[in-house]
């Protein structure tokens, strides 16, 4: 049994943490900008940061494409989270399900996702559906494996205690196993949120006339490199944003508890 933990170390202030990387970013952009002008690098090869920024401001349809991609990624992610957590709960409670289904969850991770996109397009057309499905499939594995591990991390003695008071399976799940799994689930969500964006964008590469993936492909084929950089920057920001968001949620849920005790 661990000793009572001391108070957590005071967090360094936000600007103290953010200032060094911000300075490096500004420095890198300045060098980039200067290099482009100095060497006269053509715009189609490497646009200067200011050119990219100008394109960003002028690009009126950017939010439309971004919104679509985010919608596809978020829908796929949400569907995957719902089904994945439900399946994990089933796997933890049923031997048959664990032995029968879990191997396929692992196999699903081994199939290159890109190979499935044409198939889904044949079946579901060029609309949102295949994109949402790809986002769901690509996030399914981390969600199921992490949630299952979290649900199984419940302390054996606590489970014995619940059994000794004749707790129902639902009570064991809702009062012990699920709360135990929450840190694992949020860790999975953090990974899955960026993966779902990857899934949606890659799916948009193949047969799509809108979305950030479409933007990436068309700007690349038309050598509109500044637009390509705009799309990549937005994707990077989205990825970082979702990662940070779920990190925050995870920490908010972790208030006043020691997870280490339960992570054997």
């Amino acid at each position, binding site marked *: *049994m*661990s*000793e*009572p*933990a001391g108070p957590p170390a005071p967090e360094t202030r936000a600007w103290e943490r953010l200032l060094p990387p911000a300075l490096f970013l500004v420095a890198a952009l300045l060098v980039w900008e200067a290099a482009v002008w100095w060497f006269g690098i053509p715009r189609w090869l490497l646009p200067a940061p200011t050119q990219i920024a100008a394109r960003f401001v002028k690009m009126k349809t950017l939010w439309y494409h971004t919104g679509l991609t985010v919608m596809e990624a978020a829908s796929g992610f949400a569907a995957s989270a719902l089904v994945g957590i439900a399946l994990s709960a089933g796997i933890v409670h049923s031997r048959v399900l664990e032995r029968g289904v879990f191997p396929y969850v692992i196999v699903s991770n081994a199939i290159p996702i890109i190979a499935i996109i044409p198939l889904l397009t044949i079946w579901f057309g060029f609309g949102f559906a295949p994109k949402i499905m790809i986002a769901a499939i690509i996030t399914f594995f981390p969600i199921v494996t992490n949630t299952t591990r979290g649900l199984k991390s419940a*302390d054996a*003695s*606590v489970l*014995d*205690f*619940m*059994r*000794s*008071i*004749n*707790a129902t399976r639902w*009570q064991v799940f809702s*009062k*012990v196993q699920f*709360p135990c799994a929450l840190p694992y689930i949020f860790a999975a969500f953090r990974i899955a949120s960026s993966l779902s964006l990857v899934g949606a964008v890659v799916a948009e590469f193949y047969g799509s006339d809108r979305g950030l993936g479409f933007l990436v492909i068309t700007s690349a084929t038309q050598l509109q490199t500044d637009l390509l950089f705009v799309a990549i920057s937005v994707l990077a920001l989205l990825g970082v944003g979702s990662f940070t968001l779920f990190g925050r949620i995870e920490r908010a849920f972790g208030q*006043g*508890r*020691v*997870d280490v*005790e*339960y992570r054997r």
Partner: protein
Amino acid sequence: MTSPAPLSGAAAPCIRLHAVGVTYPTARGPVEAVADVGLDIGEGEFVALLGPTGCGKSTLLRVIGDLTPPCRGQIEVRGQGAAAARRRNEFGFVFQEPALLPWRTALANVHLPLEVVGYPAERRVRRCEELLDLVGLLGFKDNYPHELSGGMKQRVAIVRALAWDPSILLMDEPFSALDELTRNRLQEDLLALWAVEHKTIVFVTHNIAEAVYLADRVAVMSARPGRIKALLPVRLPRPRRPQMRDTVEFLEHLRTAREALGG
């Protein structure tokens, strides 16, 4: 405390074990953990199961509490099977580790079984506070387990096992992870609790002094396969007092128990 509980199986024992045996399958073939154990435990009696580590005493406790099925023999709790008693929430279990939920406060941890056994909702919080007060932890009711010491956590675990007023307390080496001072303090706490909430207690321990100090009878078990080698009545008056640990009678009991263990 009134007179000691019956020393031998009375007319209607609370718990009756008959020829109980447990065999575990392992990679190197079956291992017999418990062999042919017969024991009657009276209503309100405090029985200690004393034996070396790995002698199957914990397994026997789990068999009584219907957490492990016996391979042979029968267990009766007030004339019915152990499973029926478990379903009626007769057993309060305390384990070697506190096994508290880290995201629940001390009070919420004691509250947990009340949510499960269907204790009247309006009396739950008061009941938890009452129990925490009994073990001097009312001031810590809003603390999380990681903010409590090992002894405090184990006290929370003990009152959690008493929360819904089960008639039988099953304790699996509950104090073995604690330092000696804390252990003695918790032994006093347990005896005080037992005086207030008179339960039948089966207490597993490998500590001879602990078994003698607490129990009405000490069942001495042999190493694997675990069988009951001797049933020693403890003829020390109740209430037990810390100064009794130094009396000749106490030391004689220790010697008898030690000889029974070694022989």
